[in-house]
């Protein structure tokens, strides 16, 4: 469990990081919290020739409100998401999702940019970001671009980021009216990756459920919500979730169980979102 040989560079700025990534011709990886990348390297499942350490880049740690959005730098750690008052005020769903990640030591190092870029199908933050309609600021050799969180992932552990691109920030829209939210997850043990998870948001008349752990990417399912028939509406939307997902089985749980649990977590998350 020792990594294959690699070169290590510390990037002082986003421009420097992007230049290093580009110079390696596809054989470099940004290093953020290292909580996914380093284990993969130790297992030799990842073998980047160059490791570009983003940690010295101070601007990636920003956390502020700008133009009606909560802007979260790529290096903001899970623990900060879970505890920062700005996140609690403007994206409480994200704060709650971060609390479900791993254990204290992992939350202290792991970053939002790393989690999104890693694109684990069972990870909390990609689902929360999709649920909240977040956008990503992406930097590359050609400059900056914006990518919807919902468009980031194109398969399990795979994204639409080019090899010389990196996430610099996550922008979460701050909505004007009240938004209900809920988050529910089932894991084997406390702190494990989710077997199934659901993030729900609700505005009057509509609700959206984003599912994790049941597809290669976060699965977004929305529906009408008749306020007069809330219970039926919740049941109906949860049933749609079950119907529309095709989870796989693995050593932790069968596909049938996962599918059944989609209904359970969707219902729990929707109940919370609708405060009932």
């Amino acid at each position, binding site marked *: 469990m020792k990594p294959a040989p690699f070169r290590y560079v510390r990037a002082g700025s986003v421009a420097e990081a992007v230049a290093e990534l580009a110079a390696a011709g596809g054989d470099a990886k940004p290093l953020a919290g290292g909580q996914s990348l380093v284990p993969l390297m130790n297992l030799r499942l990842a073998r980047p020739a160059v490791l570009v350490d983003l940690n010295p880049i101070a601007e990636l740690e920003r956390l502020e409100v700008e133009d009606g959005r909560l802007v979260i730098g790529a290096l903001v750690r899970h623990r900060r998401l879970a505890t920062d008052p700005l996140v609690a005020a403007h994206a409480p769903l994200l704060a709650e999702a971060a609390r479900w990640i791993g254990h204290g030591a992992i939350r202290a190092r792991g970053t939002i940019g790393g989690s999104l870029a890693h694109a684990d199908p069972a990870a909390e933050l990609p689902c929360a970001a999709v649920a909240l309609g977040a956008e990503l600021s992406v930097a590359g050799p050609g400059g900056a671009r914006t990518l919807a969180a919902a468009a980031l992932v194109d398969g399990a552990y795979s994204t639409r980021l080019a090899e010389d691109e990196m996430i610099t920030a996550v922008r979460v829209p701050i909505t004007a009216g009240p938004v209900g939210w809920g988050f529910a997850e*089932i894991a*084997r*043990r406390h*702190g494990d990756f989710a077997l199934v998870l659901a993030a729900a948001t609700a505005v009057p008349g509509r609700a959206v459920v984003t599912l994790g752990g049941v597809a290669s990417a976060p699965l977004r399912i929305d529906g009408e919500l008749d306020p007069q028939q809330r219970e039926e509406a919740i049941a109906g939307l949860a049933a749609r979730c079950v119907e529309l997902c095709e989870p796989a089985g693995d050593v932790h749980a*069968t596909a049938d169980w996962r599918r059944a649990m989609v209904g359970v977590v969707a219902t729990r998350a929707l109940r919370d979102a609708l405060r009932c």
Partner: protein
Amino acid sequence: MLGTSVPRKEDARLLTGRGRYVSDLRLPGMLHVAFVRSPLAHGRIRGVDADAARAAPGVVAVVTGDDPEVAGRELRARSSLSSYVETAQPLLARDRVRFNGEAVAAVVATDRYLAEDAADLVVLDGDPLPAVVDARAACAPGCAAVVHEEAPDNVLVRRRFEAGDVDSALAAAHLVVERELRTNRHAGVPLEGRAGVASWDAGDGTLTLWSGTQIPHMIRHGIAELLGLPERRVRVLAPDVGGGFGVKASLYPEDALLCVLAIRLGRPVRWVEDRLEHLLSASHARDHVYRVRAGLDADGTVRALDADVICNAGAYSLWPYTAALEPLMAGGLLAGPYRVDHYRCEVRGVATNTAPSGPYRGVARPATVFVMERMLDIAAAALGLDPVAVRRRNLVRAEDVPYTSATRLVHDSRTYGACLDAVLERLDYAAVRDEQRRMRGAGRALGVGLAVYNELTGMGSAASAGPRMPFRTGYEMATVRLDPEGGVTVLAGTTSQGQGLETTLAQIAADELGVAYDDVDVRMGDTQGPYGFGAFASRQGVIGGGAVLLAARAVRDRIVQIAAHLLEAAEADLRVEDGRVRPVDAPDLGISIADVARVAYHEAHRLPEGMSPGLEETRTYDPVRGTFAAGAQAAVVEVDRTTGEVRVLRHLCVEDAGRVYHPAIVAGQIEGGLAQGIGGALHEHHVYDPDGRLMTATLMDYLLPAATDVPAFEVGHVDDPAATVTGARGVGEGSTLGVAAALANAVADALSPWGVETNTLPLTPSRIHAALEEAT
């Protein structure tokens, strides 16, 4: 000292980071080994191409199974059981690989990074052969996979235990229940994995192996035989060891290969396994299937038990315990603490293309207790009886002792019932049943489950005959030595993997000698010390402790003899306490042990006529039969019926460990075993895919119990001293035995309104949910 929780001798060292583990050892010129492991579960090896690896930076050597020094050597676990098929385990796979993770080459380099880089370059060219991972499939007629040609049906060992007239008893029974039960495949996962440093001294032809082994003396024998070295020129040292739980009680090919490499290269070589290697290639355990019929009277009396047991032995019969280890234990102890006169149990150890099975805390009994206790609950439900009543009706009672079981084991425990009573009282059984009714009314599924079990510990020469190995592991040896200033060193044949033996052996010696605990040091885990068989079967406290007691007693007798001579007093008028030999009628006078020791060494001319100088004695202790430790557990769980999740609300355990040397150490053993048991019941399970690839080779997939899975345990004692010399009964494995049983019974009890049974482990949410779906 005995009976009090004195500060542990090892704590100052272990808790301040000053432990001396194998991986802390740095020898001049030391090289590092990385193994190349087979991705194939079963295949014919056409070749192993190591050219690129040999040319890689830092590489000193690469060896494969064809290497002449490797090819000619294989481990053979021996047994004279008539049905046993002896097979060989190569040091590196040659011609054939038999499991995913088997070592096919070893790379030696100047550091482990470079060794792993080069190991990456080794190419195994192999043709896949049909693989079999399920033991029942492996011994079914026509199985396409044959693991060893010597055993065309893959059965490495079989044995039938039989007593009474099972068929008539079953025919006459009021009720016969028949079930199939399965237990899950476990890994040992000690904090410290396997590790070894081998060093060859060409100057005097001696080989030294530092190893995390639980069995240094047996390892020495195996290695000397394998390498053709005189046993006296092989020294095995087990320094501080970070847990073993049985998986370090075998001689592995990797250990032996390190020795081959050290001799060949003339430089020390080191191998510290990583977690991936541990999960892939250290021994697994408890992958069993039980088909059981139990015949009972209407009052719950068990008339007969008829069982067919298949234990997955994995790809090799591990040295020294053989593939018979689990099957024999299962067949010998399936009835546990219950009286069953008509008993038949057919056991088989079956080879498959999976990691070899070996000892793991409890050896088979966590499985047999689960089976027996489930059968009792299933029968109780069918008969409309309370689970407690059925157990009370069948337990071996105090008045039955000595009770000879159907498998000819002699029970000396009088406390099975007392343990159960103590658990029920502490649980407040009636109150829990009331609570269960209340909760059910509110739609919630609360359940309570029981388990009563026993463990044959401190197995002496008669009790350890069963496996018919060339080793009768029935005794331990110890030396108690005073130095010229009266300080005491205990040299013991035991080994410690963190169980606190330095402390307990010092307590025994201090008490017996009448000296202060702080004046006693204990040294063990070195084959240059007294002989011993090592850590397994909860034997060291009982047997090793007994040897220390006998040696200390002999030294004390010598001290009294010398003091009597010096004081011109009669021995009978002297007693030893607080470091002095005192006349009974004038306790302020007398002579210090330090002065006696000084005379024994430095003024030997003052010793009694004919007594040789020095002050040390060596004794062995063999309890011949061994002794039974008893235990009972109760678990209270709540099952979430929508998800199948189990929450352990309470877990109680009352054990009879005989005389307790050190209450905190005993509590630690019991609580550690319970936590391990909860992991085993709820989470842990090694899974191979049908092609024989291990799917659970990291700790993200092989799930250990975490703090949040484990409730605050409620532990109690019934201390009935055994007839062993110290009065102790073994306590190392005991509590692990009852956990799966109690939890499975509790979950089944919680779900009894829906008729759900829990006969397959582990009790995962997905499995429980499926059972509920099926039932409703």
